[in-house]
């Protein structure tokens, strides 16, 4: 697929950067014709992924880096969010709703990513970091209108 734009972002694993990451990705995504509601959904998905990297991947250690690669094609945004943290023991289990290793977290991060994006893929191994790949098409929820008569 031919891309029309790409960007790469690298930032410290501190909570203040959650807002930086989602606002930056949403601004980048707005080059395509997303609705405001789409952009809100992208923001939530990015917040959850970056939050997971900080809280689970790096156990809140502030001196590591998180990287985001984003690609725009004519009708799709693909986001790759990568950390070099401790990884996920059981990815399948982590993707289930209400699975969290922390009492005060709801295990909803992946649920929101899955609900708000059109595709979600999680690659992780214990000790080898986590890569979250998700994509969202423009107007994916709107039925195609045929102009042929």
């Amino acid at each position, binding site marked *: 697929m031919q891309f029309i734009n790409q960007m790469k972002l690298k930032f410290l694993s501190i*909570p203040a950067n*959650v807002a930086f990451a989602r606002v930056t990705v949403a601004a980048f995504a707005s080059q395509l014709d997303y609705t405001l509601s789409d952009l809100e959904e992208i923001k*939530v998905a990015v917040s*959850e992924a970056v939050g997971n990297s900080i809280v689970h991947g790096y156990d809140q250690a502030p001196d590591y880096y998180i990287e985001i690669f984003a690609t725009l094609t004519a009708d799709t945004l693909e986001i790759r969010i990568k950390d070099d943290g401790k990884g996920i023991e059981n990815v399948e289990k982590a993707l289930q709703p209400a699975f969290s290793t922390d009492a*005060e977290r*709801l295990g*909803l991060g992946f649920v929101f990513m899955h609900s708000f994006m059109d595709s979600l893929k999680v690659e992780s191994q214990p000790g080898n970091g986590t890569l979250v790949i998700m994509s969202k098409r423009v107007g994916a929820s709107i039925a195609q209108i045929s102009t042929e008569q």
Partner: protein
Amino acid sequence: MHLDFELKDNTLIVRLSGDMDLGKADYLRNSLEAVLDQQQVNNLIFNLAQVTFLDSSILGVLLGRYKRISKKGGKVCIVEPQPQVRRILEMSGLFQVMEEFPGEDIALKNIG
């Protein structure tokens, strides 16, 4: 983020504003815990009218306070979330334990 507390008849009204995420979660949790430790609080009202963004880290803080308040038989409710925030609350299932009201006065009336 601006955080505002008001205690009315043992019900603590918490008014939040702005984008709420992991960057604000610890501050929110600690501020709430400090008030709950110092004051006699039976019920909690979260006024979300001015909240423009919310993610699961904040849902966790809300749920944590619900656990504390409900243990002593109190109620926690949500007031006036904006549509995008409301959607997150709805998907999380939080409305199953926290009732939603269109204003603080109505919430106070129903809670007391």
